[in-house]
Each structure stands twice: as structure tokens, then as C-alpha cells.
């Protein structure tokens, strides 16, 4: 009995596989991290009302009127070394005249990020989003996420190829006075 108890106590029941985090220190303070998603290889799901090209093909996107203006994508997320490290969800919706774009990035060994993006990207620049909150490792962080599309080689089947880049710049929220995080990171 003691041996069984000892084994259960010392041997971890769950041991998440970890890729080394590739984080750089930004010149103006804080940390930067680059994630990317290879399209179409990393797209797990895409669903939207009235649009062709659902992934997977058998996906039955809800036809209820409530979902008229919602589109959701689920992706695998990669680090700068092209290794899969997590899963992300991108939801797009139309709220009146406003476009809503939210990201949730879930990295099992580290935690999750919840990001509200600006409705429209600035001309010629990436779409910027604010890190609303995070869990575990990201729980005390404040910062910005920049989303940009990098086109790849032309596709023969009409499916866009390329990658979505997500550059995260974050600082510890507790070390800053309100509002300064964004100014510092922009």
C-alpha cells in the first residue's frame, strides 16, 4: 500500500509536453513572442453562415438566425520554430455597424490569452488587439497582439495559402500604472 501511495505521489499523472518558449525582450521593455498559423494546413475548423468552404467538409454550421453574422475558425498554433504549441479560436461577428474580432490562444503547458482586436487594421499595418486577460502564465500580463496575413505561394485550388502571424508584446500588468502598457508597447 505504501509503495502504491509513494508511486502515485511521486510519479506525475499528467506531464504536458513542452516546447521551449521563444521569447525576446523588447527594446522598450516587456517581452515579445511570435506565433503563426500555416494556412490551410493548421486550420481545424472554419464555419460561417451562407459561405462555402466549411472545414471539415461535413461540418453542419448552425442555421439558426442567431448565427447569421458569426464566423468561427479553430487553428493549431505554432511557435517561431514551426512547432505546434497550442490551439486558437478566432471569432468574427458583426455587431450593428461594428466588426468584432476576438482571439483565444490556448497553450496547454502555459495558459491562455483572450484578445479583442480593433475593428479595422490601420492602412498597411497589422490589425492590433488588446490582451484583455490571460490565464496561468499570462494571468498577470497586459499587452497587445498584432495580427497580420503573410501570403504564400499561389494555390491551384483557389484556397488562399500563407500564414497568419500573431506577434504578442506583453508586460507585467502589476509593474505598470494603468494605460501605460499599450503606450509602451505600440
Amino acid at each position, binding site marked *: 500500500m505504501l509503495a502504491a501511495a509513494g508511486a*502515485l505521489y511521486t510519479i506525475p499523472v499528467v506531464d504536458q509536453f513542452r516546447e521551449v518558449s521563444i521569447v525576446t525582450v523588447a527594446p522598450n521593455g516587456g517581452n515579445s513572442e511570435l506565433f503563426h498559423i500555416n494556412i490551410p494546413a493548421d486550420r481545424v475548423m472554419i464555419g460561417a453562415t451562407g459561405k462555402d468552404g466549411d472545414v471539415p467538409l461535413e461540418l453542419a454550421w*448552425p442555421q439558426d438566425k442567431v448565427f447569421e453574422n458569426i464566423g468561427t475558425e479553430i487553428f*493549431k498554433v505554432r511557435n517561431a520554430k514551426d512547432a505546434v504549441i497550442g490551439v486558437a*479560436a478566432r471569432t468574427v461577428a458583426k455587431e450593428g455597424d461594428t466588426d468584432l474580432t476576438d482571439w483565444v490562444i*490556448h497553450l496547454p*503547458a502555459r495558459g*491562455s490569452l*483572450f484578445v479583442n482586436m480593433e475593428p479595422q487594421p490601420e492602412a498597411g499595418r497589422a490589425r492590433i488587439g488588446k490582451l484583455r486577460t490571460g490565464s496561468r502564465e499570462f494571468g498577470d500580463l497586459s499587452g497587445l497582439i498584432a495580427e497580420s496575413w503573410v501570403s504564400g505561394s499561389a494555390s491551384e485550388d483557389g484556397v488562399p495559402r500563407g500564414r497568419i502571424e500573431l506577434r504578442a508584446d506583453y508586460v507585467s500588468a502589476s509593474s505598470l500604472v494603468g494605460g501605460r502598457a499599450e503606450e509602451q508597447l505600440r
Partner: protein
Amino acid sequence: MKYIIALIAGILSGAALFLLGLVYNPFIGEAALSPLATTDSKTLTLGYSAVASDSVMYTNDGESQVSPFPDKVQQLWEAPISQTNAMVTVLTDSRNQVAGMGIKMASAGENTRLLEGKALVNSVWYVYLPGRGSFFVEQTENYWGYLRDIILPAYRSSAGTWKGIWTGNVTSGPGTTGTARVSGGTGEFDGMEMLGVESLSVRTWRVSGGPLAADGWLTIEMPDDQLAAN
């Protein structure tokens, strides 16, 4: 020879006794009442089917009891995400009307301690309710009661099936009272900091397939002062 046999028999019976003690440990139990049951604040209750084939999409490593849905959805087989599952589902309100979309991503928790009755899962929900806005739920779930009361009996059953009615709160943190941390994103939830609890009601569970009849609920407490501010 007889000493070796006695040693092996002793080890096996010791391990079996230990497992019995672990499963039926009277000192490990779950709170029967939701931490939000006695709140005076307004609550928002959202329901969903906890059966994978009722969801819009469910995926995992493809080798777990619950099969991905639809069949050809990409699986999360890479090592860093192989203990993770993702689900996109329709959420209903307390009148069972379609209210919005929920996305749940959950991973096995490294702080799982079976000796302490903790079978933990770290999960997040993203909820979008058209016309109202979005919010994010961060929680640690404890499936010890689910494991002990449903999964083990299903494995012991000759048919490999458990049938009954099991209802319980799976949220165990990060709030000290066993609540999830809920952060508003857009719309009427913008800037709000709330508490939440996820609960499950299971009626049928099968070894090959997982839950066959099960529902889940997210209950969100919305503090009156923050509602008024929004």
C-alpha cells in the same frame, strides 16, 4: 518459491486495498452546492449538450474515448496538444432558446493529484452572444467525482455502460470558493469581472464513446454594480 508467491500476492493485495481506499476515501468529497447558489446578483445561465456528436465540432488526439466530430475533423495529435480537446457548441438560454456560440478548450492539468482527489483540467471558454457581446471564462475543473461515480462504474459494468443521474459542479478554481474567473470582452460585458461555475448532468456514459446523454451549464454571476455601470 512460496515466499516469492507470498510477496507478489502481498504487493497485489496491498495495491488493490490502496486503490479501494483511494476511490472510497470518505475524506474526499465535492461541495454539493454551487458557490453561486446563494448569490443575490443577477445570473446568466447558458446550457449546452455535453455529447460530442451534438456539438458543432469536437476534436482531440483521436485516441481518446470520445471520438472527434465530424469524423474527418483534424485531430490534435502533436505532443504539446495531445492532451487537449477543443469544442465549438451552440449555447442555449434558461428558456432553452439558442443564445449564442461557445468555444471550449481544455487540457489535462499537471497539478492533478489523485491522492488528494484532484483529477484536474485547465480549461477556457469563449462565449459570444449576438446582440450582447463576448466574455472569457478561465477555470480549473476537477473531474474526480465524475471519474469515481461514472467512469469507474462504467468500466466495472459488464456492458461497459453507466446509466443513472449524476449532477455536479466541475469548476474548482481558480477562485477560492471554487469559482471560475470570467472576464468581459465586448458589448454589455465589456470591462466586467465576474464569477462562474460549470456544471454537468450525465445520464448515460459508455466506455466506448464517453458521454451519450449529458448536458452542461455555465452559470455566470453578474455583479449589480458592474451591470449598472455598463
